[in-house]
């Protein structure tokens, strides 16, 4: 069992390395939010002025709230619609199923630039125009394929015998879904939700085309600010978001077990 110990130790070390890699730019981003120079110039000079001026920056704050609201709504809609669709694709066979599965790829494959421009024109022609509602429409559409792909991947590991067994015991379709299938695919659903949130919250291109002054999202504001004159207020708001998300996530982990333990 020595090798197992060694391997496990190596494994943990590896995860540590990976986390270092993942967080290196984030730590820098946070550090630079406390640095005086607006150009990431070293030497490092401590300041909290960027956080202070952030509170005055109504535009950035409004955009942040918009992003959060849209991301939350997008996640909820995507998780419900996406899980339902995945279940259908998993359970049933019908003509055109392959086609429907293939249809999930254009939204991911086509550069968001094209999709964004296409939405801009189409929404304009149809009367939806631009603004937060249009952005929501776009975000859900972009995130749905991710949820479906992820939940489907999880469903692939599901043993259909479990559903059969439950059915033979007299459960109806709804009960089977709720009591047997759903708990199993819950990690997939949650993962899909996390994806959907990330896709929506960090979505830039489509939001850019569909936003109007006063109805923008955070990535759009950041992009505009970078072109105009970068200030580390952007770092400040990004750092705040990461810290808050981390706190929320760790709190959720405390109370919900979603690792799919049997």
């Amino acid at each position, binding site marked *: 069992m020595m*090798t197992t110990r060694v391997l*496990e130790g190596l*494994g*943990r070390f590896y*995860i540590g390395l*990976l*986390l270092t890699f*993942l*967080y*290196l*730019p*984030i730590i*820098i*981003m946070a550090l630079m939010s406390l640095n005086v120079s607006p150009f990431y110039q070293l030497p490092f000079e401590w300041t909290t002025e960027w956080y202070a001026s952030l509170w005055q920056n109504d535009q950035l704050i409004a955009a942040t709230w918009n992003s959060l609201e849209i991301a939350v709504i997008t996640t909820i809609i995507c998780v*419900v*619609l996406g899980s339902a*669709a995945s279940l*259908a694709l*998993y*359970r*049933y*066979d019908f003509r055109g199923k392959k086609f*429907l599965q293939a*249809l999930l*790829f*254009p939204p*991911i*494959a*086509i*550069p968001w*630039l*094209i*999709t964004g*421009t*296409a939405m801009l024109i189409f929404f304009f022609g149809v009367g939806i125009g631009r603004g937060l509602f249009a952005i929501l429409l776009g975000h859900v559409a972009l995130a*749905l*394929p*991710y949820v479906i*792909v*992820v939940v*489907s*991947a*999880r469903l*692939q*590991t599901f043993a*259909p015998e479990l559903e059969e067994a439950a059915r033979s015991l007299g459960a109806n379709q709804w009960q089977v879904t709720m009591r047997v299938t759903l708990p199993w695919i819950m990690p*997939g659903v949650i*993962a899909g939700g*996390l*994806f959907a949130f*990330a896709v929506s919250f*960090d979505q*830039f291109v489509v939001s850019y085309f569909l936003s109007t002054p006063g109805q923008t999202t955070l990535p759009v504001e950041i992009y505009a600010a970078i072109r105009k004159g970068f200030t580390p207020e952007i770092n400040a708001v990004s750092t705040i*978001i*990461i810290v808050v998300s*981390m706190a929320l*996530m760790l709190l959720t982990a405390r109370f919900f077990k*979603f*690792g*799919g333990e049997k």
Partner: protein
Amino acid sequence: MAAQGTSRSGLSSALPLLAPAYLWLTAAIFLPLSAMVFFSFMTDLPLSGKPWAFTLGNYAAFFSQSLYLTLLLASLRLGLEVTLWCVIIGYPAAYVLAKVLKGRSREAIFLLVILPFWSNGLVRIFSWAMVLREGGILDTALNAVLPFKINIDLMYSYPAVIIGLVHSYVPYMVLTCYLTLQAIDDSLIEAGRSLGASRLQVLKRVIIPLSMPGLVAGAALIFVPVVGSFMEPRILGGRTGTFYGTIIEDQFVAVFNWPLGAALSFILLAVVLVILAVASPVLKRAA
């Protein structure tokens, strides 16, 4: 062991579950994209007030100018490299998460891996500039540790683009692989070991095949967007940062040639779909 759902009543039962999602996709994506397909066959947009006509010229341009093919190949190569790195880096991490870590620490680390997703992409890229440039974090750190002086300037180069993209997309791979790895019953692994199989054999014959769906899903979610990406290549790639995605962007931002931009994108879509169609049975057979 195929874990497919059993054939049941078919479309009529599936419809209520499928309809909301696909209706939304139709309204927000497929209809607009159809309009774009329409545009890709025009000489000019009706919007521009200029006379327009139908033409195959935009698609023909792809074949007549070697520029586009060269860039498409470069982008495909970029996609492949990034996906491969994500597999190499992400799969072991997912395995450790799924099999080695347990309980609270597993969940906490899992969330920590996902968290960088939620940081803003643009700011992340700028932060990489600080790490990779000459006089940046990497350069300074290495010089402090190594006995001899070296000059690391990775910024504005192909490696920088790879690093930036891998950093952005590896959580996808970790996540999807985790989902399928975690579903593998430990008793299967124990059974294999007790029958005398070595760790490597268990890995090859049991674990990898069972987690294949996760790998394939992750690869698809990474390969596809990377091929069309333009932000990371532009910012991190410097003068070598021209890829298929940036060329398409130019058609919308530098000139008013949406028909060409649309045609180029649909060619990209077709190529990607072909690759996925060819690759997935191959991978499934390997399972």
